[in-house]
C-alpha cells in the first residue's frame, strides 16, 4: 500500500521561487541487515526520483541504501507557467510509483 504525500503551492506569481515537498512510503531496506537466524535481508530501496514540470525534467535524485525509510525530498523551482508536476519513484523489485500536482501561475 504505497502512497505519496505531495506539497506544491496551488497558486503562485510568475517568477516566484516555490518549494516542492514530497514524501514517499517505502521501507528502504539497506541489504546489509540480517535476520535473527543470520540470513541477509535482501536490498529493497528506491533508486531514483524524478520531477517533471509540464513534461520537462527539472529535478532528479539517485537514492542509496543509507537513506532512511519513507524518503522526504524537497527542492525549489521557479514558477514559470501554469501546469502540472509529475513525480516518479523507481526502485528495487520493480517498484514504481507516480503522483502529480497542479499549479496555477498568474
Amino acid at each position, binding site marked *: *500500500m504505497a*502512497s505519496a*504525500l*505531495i*506539497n506544491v503551492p496551488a497558486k503562485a506569481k510568475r517568477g516566484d521561487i516555490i518549494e516542492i*515537498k514530497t*514524501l514517499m*512510503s517505502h*521501507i*528502504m531496506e539497506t541489504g546489509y541487515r540480517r535476520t535473527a537466524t543470520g540470513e541477509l535481508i535482501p536490498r529493497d530501496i528506491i533508486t531514483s526520483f524524478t520531477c517533471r514540470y509540464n513534461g520537462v525534467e527539472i529535478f532528479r535524485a539517485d537514492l542509496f541504501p543509507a537513506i*532512511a*525509510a*519513507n524518503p*522526504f525530498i524537497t527542492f525549489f523551482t521557479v514558477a514559470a507557467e501554469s501546469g502540472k508536476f509529475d513525480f516518479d519513484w523507481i526502485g528495487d523489485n520493480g517498484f514504481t510509483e507516480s503522483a502529480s500536482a497542479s499549479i496555477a501561475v498568474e
Partner: protein
Amino acid sequence: MRSFPAIAGAALLVTAAIVVPLLATEIPQGQRRSGYSFMTPDTQAMQNDDTANPGMLWVLDGEALWNNNTGALNKACADCHHDASASMRGVAAHYPAFDPTLERPVTLEQRINLCRVRHQQAPPLAYESRDLLALTAFVARQSRGLAIEAGADPQLAPFVAKGHELFMHRQGQLNFGCTNCHDDNWDKHLAGSAITQAQPTGYPLYRLEWQSLGSLERRLRACMTGIRAQPYDYGAPELVELELYLMTRARGLPVETPAVRP
C-alpha cells in the same frame, strides 16, 4: 576498627534504599509536558507539517481501510460509523476504555480488533501490523488537538490503580520502575537523549529510530528491554493497565496523533 567502614557503608546503603523510593513523586499538573516540547525545532516542524510527517502515510492507509469492505459480512467500518471525522472525534482521547463484555479495559487497537471480530466477522489484525497501526492512527487522528480524558469511567478505577502500581514497581536487572526516570528525572538526559515525562500524547507515533509508526505497547516493551526486564507480551493485561494509567496521568494534554519522536 576494621569493621567500622563496613558498617558505615552498610548504613549508607540502608539509607539509600530508604531515601530512593521517597523521591518518587508525581509531576504537578502545571509542569506536565508532552514529549513534543523536548524535541528539536526540526523534529517539531516535521510533526507540524502534514506533508512532512511520515505518520500521515499510515493515516492515509487507514482512511482507505476504513472504507474497505472486509470479513464474512463484507462490511466496512464506514458502513456503521459513517464519516470518521464526526463519529471518531474525541474517541481516542478516552482510550483505553472499559469493555462490558470482557469486563476489563481495552486499548484502541484491541477495540478495532474486537469490532472486526464482532461486527465484521473478520480475523483480528496482528499487533504492530501495518493495517492495525494504520486504522488506529486514522481513528486517533480524528482526536488531534482535543484534551486527553482517559480513565474517567469509575469502572476503570481498579485498573488505573494496577497500572499505577506497575509504574512504581521496580523490575529487571537494573531494578528500575518507570517512576525512577519519568517522575524523578524527566528534566535530565540519558546519554544525549531527553528522558521526558512519558506522556503518551501522540500514539501511534512515528519514531525516527524505528523508521516506522509504532504503538505505545511497542514503546513500553522497548523501555522494559532497556531496564533489562522481560517485556510483557503484546496485548498483555499489564501493558493495557500501564497504558491506561499513563493516559490517565496525561489527562488535559492534547492528542497529537500521529506524532513524530526522535
